[in-house]
């Protein structure tokens, strides 16, 4: 773990130095030096409304992703548990998971307008299907030996589900959440760029079209930071919930 942290820091430092040197020597607006991006970031925080916009973005992300988790897990459970539900929905879920979610944005605008509901819907649609499908797989493939054991000891249907199938599916559900959070961040920025201009997406569009590259990179780095932190939070939750899993990671 310490090894990894050192490697991460070294990697970031190297990247920062290369960026700084490259930016200073090229003297082009296309690649502003990192120090300039840093001061642009501080300026944006103080007077540019970066934090306000960040809060708007995070709010959309949180609501959209939570809805996707709740409904995605619920639908995945139903599909994994009941063959009839699976056969009814399988087609749509697979088609929607594989198709580009951006294609639905015009429809969302028609349904929800240009406000926050549409942006939440985009975040939701980006992350919902991968969570549903992973949950379904996990519930469906619960170890039959464990199911039989529980039945043999007299488990009722709800006990079988609650005490065996659901915990057995947890690693797969968490895998869905890990994939889902990444997609949710993409959905967040996509929504803000293509729908009403607010949040991080709006700032990216604004500074991009104004050739204010130092501010542009400052916003992009902030988005990267959000993505990384969101990912780490889900990973931490995963480790907490599935610590019983046999560790196959190599230290």
């Amino acid at each position, binding site marked *: 773990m310490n090894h990894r942290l050192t490697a991460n820091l070294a990697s970031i430092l190297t990247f920062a130095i290369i960026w700084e040197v490259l930016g200073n020597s090229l003297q082009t607006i296309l690649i502003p030096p990192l120090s300039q991006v840093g001061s642009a970031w501080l300026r944006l925080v103080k007077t540019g409304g970066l934090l306000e916009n960040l809060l708007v973005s995070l709010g959309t992300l949180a609501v959209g992703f939570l809805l996707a988790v709740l409904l995605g897990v619920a639908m995945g459970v139903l599909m994994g548990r009941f063959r009839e539900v699976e056969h009814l929905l399988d087609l749509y879920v697979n088609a929607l998971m594989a198709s580009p979610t951006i294609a639905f944005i015009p429809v969302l605008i028609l349904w929800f307008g240009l406000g926050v509901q549409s942006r939440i819907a985009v975040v939701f649609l980006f992350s919902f299907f991968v969570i549903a499908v992973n949950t379904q797989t996990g519930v469906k493939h619960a170890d039959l*030996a*464990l199911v*039989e*054991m*529980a*039945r*043999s*000891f*007299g*488990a*009722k249907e709800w*006990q079988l589900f609650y*005490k*065996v199938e659901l*915990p*057995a599916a*947890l690693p797969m559900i968490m895998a869905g959440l890990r994939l889902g959070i990444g997609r949710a961040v993409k959905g967040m920025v996509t929504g803000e760029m293509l729908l009403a201009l607010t949040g991080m997406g709006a700032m990216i569009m604004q500074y991009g079209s104004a050739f204010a590259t130092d501010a542009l990179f400052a916003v992009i780095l902030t988005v990267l930071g959000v993505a990384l932190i969101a990912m780490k939070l889900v990973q931490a939750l995963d480790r907490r919930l*599935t610590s*019983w*899993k*046999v560790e196959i990671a190599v230290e």
Partner: protein
Amino acid sequence: MVEIQRVSKTFQKVVKEKTVEVKALADVDLSIRDKEFVSIIGPSGCGKTTLLRIIDGLISCDSGQVLINSRKVTSPGPDRAVVFQTFALLPWRTVLGNVEFSLELRGVPKEERTQIGRSYLELVGLAEFEHHFPHELSGGMQQRAGLARALAVNPQILLMDEPFGSVDAQTRQLLQEELLDLWQREKKTVVFVTHSMDEAVYLSDRVVIMTPRPGHVAEVLNVPLPRPRSPDDVRRSREFVELTNYIWESLKKAMRRER
């Protein structure tokens, strides 16, 4: 008393998109007395595990019936508990959590089930490992936990499905001794499925020899070896060797006939 009366079972199997009927059991008759240790032995495919699952009520038979104390078996019940070949421990629960599982399903309150769970872990020699997860234990220890879980519900009948089939030979002998020891103290009816002749003779009062396709009882053999049985003396005794040889000849005959 367990009475197995003319039990037959046919499975539908899909082979190359055609449904084939496989007759797993045909007219199996067997009576097992209270507190008796009976082993069921036979080659793979003789339906011994199927028979055990029918006794437990996990699956139903097509014809015939199983009676336990004159009552027909239709589902799993608190008078029976199974020890599984694959241990079937919940990997997300500690050893104690696994032993408590069977009690939890029956609504035993938390404190009571922890107390019962601990006492059975002590009985199988796992007291120090109650907070370990299954994957941290050896196969033999995992099966001790499986045994503790089954005993914890205090069943009259212990159904054991090749319980020592996936542990190494030395551990297997140890577990056999411990099981006999426990059985002598707890006095339960044990139905023990195995494919080891040695194991069947050493443990049992009677050995049921089954032959496959369709699975049926070929012979029921009394094991007159005195108890308590000390493993080394018993295995070297003439009766023991003769009995295992006899079973082997009997199984060979049945398998040749099948070919």
